[in-house]
């Protein structure tokens, strides 16, 4: 099932716990993700990218306006900025619990762990893994549930470049096989250009869409595609 996500006239403010100051993160903010569209969001830190993702995931409620995810509650695959693993149970169980809750057969856990290169660690506690390996567990958990909506909050920024590159290819493959609606937050403009159908540059307070780039290159794309570098240059220009 393809899911359309739309935020309409969303207001969202936080009260800073230390200063008591009210921060208006979004005011009358609207954004639509077409069914099966992968949108990348780039922007400075503290702009509201994670808040946007939490609004879509239902982890935050808007003060005003509406967030709609196609009427129902779509199956989510989410990679948080931190891996958010259960440290007291094995890597395999971490992934399996999400799979089982989503009605996915436990037999599908092993292939996913293989895909993120963690087969040997399936029975280890997450606490023995490096930061990058932990994040790969989180990626496996997000992919295993056959998500209708995939929300990725800087999923590859803690990884070494080689692993990040392979996971980007894996993500592209996921879209080639089964497109789904997705939001990718990243600091990496080239990553955004490589993966997304559309790149949204978020900036200001309250946050607004400063610029948008539609990227019509057909998939599979190559990370070395010169045209993507061109988009990358323009995104960086918009950011600075």
């Amino acid at each position, binding site marked *: *099932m393809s899911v359309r996500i739309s935020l309409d006239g969303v207001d969202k403010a936080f009260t800073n716990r230390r200063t008591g100051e009210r921060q208006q993160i979004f005011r009358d903010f609207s954004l639509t993700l077409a069914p099966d569209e992968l949108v990348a969001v780039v922007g400075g830190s503290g702009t509201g990218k994670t808040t946007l993702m939490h609004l879509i*995931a*239902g*982890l935050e409620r808007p003060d005003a306006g509406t967030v709609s995810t196609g009427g129902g509650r779509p199956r*989510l695959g*989410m990679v*948080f900025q*931190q891996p*958010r693993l*259960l*440290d*007291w*149970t094995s890597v395999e*169980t971490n992934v399996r*619990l*999400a799979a089982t*809750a*989503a009605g996915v057969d436990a037999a*599908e856990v092993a*292939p*996913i762990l*293989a*895909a*993120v*290169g*963690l*087969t*040997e*660690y399936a*029975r*280890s*506690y997450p*606490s*023995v893994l490096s930061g990058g390996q932990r994040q790969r567990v989180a990626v496996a*958990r997000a*992919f295993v*549930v*056959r998500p209708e909506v995939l929300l990725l909050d800087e999923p590859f920024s803690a990884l070494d470049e080689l*692993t990040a590159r*392979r*996971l980007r*290819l*894996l993500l592209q*493959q*996921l879209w080639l*096989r*089964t497109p789904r609606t997705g939001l990718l937050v990243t600091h990496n403009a080239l990553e955004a250009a490589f993966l997304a159908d559309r790149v949204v540059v978020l900036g200001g307070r309250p946050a607004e869409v400063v610029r948008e780039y539609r990227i019509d290159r057909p998939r599979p794309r190559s990370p070395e595609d010169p045209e993507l570098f061109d988009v990358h240059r323009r995104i960086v220009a918009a950011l600075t």
Partner: protein
Amino acid sequence: MTVTHPVVAEEVALGGGRSPAPPGRPPAADVVGRLTRPLPALLLVGLLAAGWQLMADASGSALIPGLGDVARNLVDIAASGALWDNVRVTLTRVALGFAAAFVVSVAAGIAMGRSEWLRRFLEPAVLIGLATPGLVKALLCVIWFGVSLLNPILTVALAAAPALTINVAQGVRSVDPALGEMAHVYRLDALTRLRYVWLPAIVPDLFTGARLGIAMAWKVIVLVEIFGLADGVGYQLNLEFSQHNVAGVLAWTVAFALVMAAIEYGLLQTLERRAVRWRRVALR
């Protein structure tokens, strides 16, 4: 949905063979370490015993019997079967009372940890429970429930529950809300959350609470048995006391201490080591 799974391992093979060998199971138990671990505690016991004997020899008073006297009394009560009979009776009362306190405290603690309103509502009761001397609880239960089995169970439960509840609540409050969000996003059901998110996170506080609770339980069970019951270690202590047999009082005290040590070292520490094994693996 009938889509085939999109991720196929072979197509984007990651890291095969590059990763270092994963850490296996913890290495076979270090026998020397295991044997030497109790040495400091045994040394202390030996020193205390030697000091006691010196004091007994120096005073020559019947009020401070020597180790030999105490040991003879211990052998006597063990040989007559009185030791085991009474320890079993007392242990059963403590176990039943503690089990009751555990069920109530875990429920109350989780409620207090999750709801600010319930915390404010229940906290005074817990604090009063903590502050009330065990003697008062024991006396009231003896007055109200007399010699029934309910009396010792209720007293033990009343003694153990406050410390246990406060620690469970503390543990629940310290659970990372980020994990709750993860559980929500992946729609883990209530049982899975309890088993995999809540309980493991509160294990350290649960053990702290259990230790305090059991310590309180020992103190009151002896009182209840002295005042209101006709058997158990407390009753026997009082019996020896009324016969002016100081060595007998000490023999029961030693027996009692041995049982407590067996529970701490044999049961609690073993359970705790298993429950927090993941932490030790992490430190390697």
